[in-house]
């Protein structure tokens, strides 16, 4: 029998029994929708992680010692020497962080204040919106100047302030006056991002003002992905030589954290997809069950078809196509439902969920495959009916 004819017939018998067909498809619909949803949201979470790390800046290594006092050998000169010796490490900046009360006229807020060098802005892949960066001379002369993150500016000076208007103003950090010399470009519109809230001041000033004797945390950048490992090893060796104990410090490479997190997300995703797969299996069994019922109901029809010349293959094909049609329609509805759910959940959780073409192709492939596998047994039963017995069947 021609494929098209068999398909039309299958469609007809599905339409003749809409409720039954829908219930039969339900397992497939739920299974496919679940797969699409999980993969889509998984991609969303991965995107979110990548965005977060992109905000942090790419190719970054953070090295941090736990003890203030034993950090006395972590001097700018020594670190500079190490960075200059190794070509894999490109830039670096000390990092002195504290949350401080910031005051401008009547506005008072607690914001993170970071003591850094001029290189910090480029280490963190930040850009200046207006004014100038912190400069070497600010560090050596302990100039009380600051560069504001974009949201730090809008927080202090009001929402509608233009970056240029803030330049030259004075804000008070812990009661000390600082002149605003630069504003950073906005990185993320999100209120939850800390990356736009910071206030940068020269590290020398931060050490003095906040009474921090030794710098414990340092930011480094490395050349490219390939040099990440070598750069991490060089820094690790340097720190080990100073502390003689790997437990006294920590070295974090953003790339490897991101890779680890993506690995974890992928593992979770696979487990969830496997669970959703069980639903597909159950759906397939549902189709098999209904197909068996259908074969029994249509025994007489099969008898007639065989009497007028249908061979086993013709009957087999008819029923397998019917099963495939059922599961394929189920799969299609599942894709629609899944895509719809991904859109809703993504917007609810503010992630960029994304229904990949892969997952759609895989889901449709699986649903057709299920049709073949679970349709074959009932179809085979139909094909092997004896025409005489089938014709006598009432």
């Amino acid at each position, binding site marked *: 029998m021609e494929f098209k004819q068999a398909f039309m017939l299958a469609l007809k018998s599905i339409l003749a029994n809409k409720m039954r067909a829908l219930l039969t498809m339900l397992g497939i619909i739920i299974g496919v929708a679940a797969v699409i949803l999980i993969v889509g949201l998984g991609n969303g979470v991965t995107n979110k992680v990548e965005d977060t790390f992109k905000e942090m800046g790419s190719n970054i290594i953070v090295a941090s010692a736990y003890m203030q006092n034993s950090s006395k050998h972590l001097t700018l000169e020594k670190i500079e020497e190490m960075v200059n010796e190794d070509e894999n490490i490109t830039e670096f900046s000390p990092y002195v962080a504290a949350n401080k009360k910031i005051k401008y006229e009547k506005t008072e807020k607690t914001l993170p204040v970071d003591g850094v060098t001029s290189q910090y802005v480029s280490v963190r892949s930040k850009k200046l919106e207006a004014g100038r960066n912190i400069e070497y001379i600010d560090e050596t002369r302990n100039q009380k100047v600051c560069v504001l993150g974009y949201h730090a500016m809008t927080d202090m000076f009001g929402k509608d302030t233009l970056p240029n208007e803030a330049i030259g103003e004075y804000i008070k950090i812990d009661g000390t006056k600082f002149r605003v010399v630069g504003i950073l470009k906005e990185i993320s519109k999100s209120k939850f991002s800390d990356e736009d809230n910071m206030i940068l001041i020269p590290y020398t000033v931060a050490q003095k003002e906040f009474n921090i004797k030794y710098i414990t945390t340092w930011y480094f950048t490395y050349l490219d992905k390939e040099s990440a490992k070598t750069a991490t090893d060089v820094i690790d060796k340097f720190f080990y030589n100073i502390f003689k104990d790997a437990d006294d410090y920590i070295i974090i490479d953003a790339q490897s954290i991101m890779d680890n997190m993506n690995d974890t997300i992928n593992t979770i995703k696979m487990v969830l997809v496997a669970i959703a797969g069980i639903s597909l299996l159950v759906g397939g069994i549902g189709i098999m069950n209904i197909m068996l019922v259908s074969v029994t109901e249509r025994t007489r029809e099969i008898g*007639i078809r065989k009497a007028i010349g249908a061979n086993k293959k013709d009957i087999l094909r008819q029923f397998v196509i019917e099963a495939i049609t059922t599961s394929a329609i189920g799969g299609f509805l599942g894709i629609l439902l899944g895509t719809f759910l991904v859109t809703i959940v993504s917007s609810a959780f503010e992630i960029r969920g994304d229904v990949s073409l892969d997952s759609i192709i895989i889901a449709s492939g699986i649903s057709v495959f299920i049709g073949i596998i679970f349709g074959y047994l009932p179809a085979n039963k139909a094909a*092997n009916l004896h025409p005489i017995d089938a014709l006598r069947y009432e």
Partner: protein
Amino acid sequence: MNIIGCLDIPSSGNYILDGIDVGTLSDDELSYIRNYKLGFIFQQYNLIQKLNVISNVELPLIYKKVPKEERILRAKEALLKVGLEGMEKRYPQQLSGGQQQRVSIARALATKPSVILADEPTGALDSHTGIEVLELIKELNEEGNTIILVTHDNSIAAQAKRIIRISDGKIIEDKNNEG
């Protein structure tokens, strides 16, 4: 009847059709013979209710892998012959018993079989339509179709050219009935 129709194979004895021992054939080979050499007219019409008239008539041609245009042509031709032109799109349940039986005759004719087997073709019909159907079968016979008709009704049997009487599985009479 089922054995002549290759729907069943004999448990003992041989059935030779066109020089082939049917008892030795596989399921699919029997289907092939039914498709190419035989046409069936059943007492209960045995039409497929989900298919319309033309699809029912077309069905054996589909299994014969006849191309679509020719199928429709031959199906229409067969329907014309049984007097059902214009009823192509109707469904079996929209037809009377006599009309349904004509559809089944058209289905048997469509493949141009060597032999048409009719198993009590008038058994489910009232006497009036029964006569009509019988007339149609006779007509087809006049046109050169071989028809084997099984019946309990002597008045129907009397209209055949050759009568074989079977009682308790044994042939008790075989006579020509011409003229």
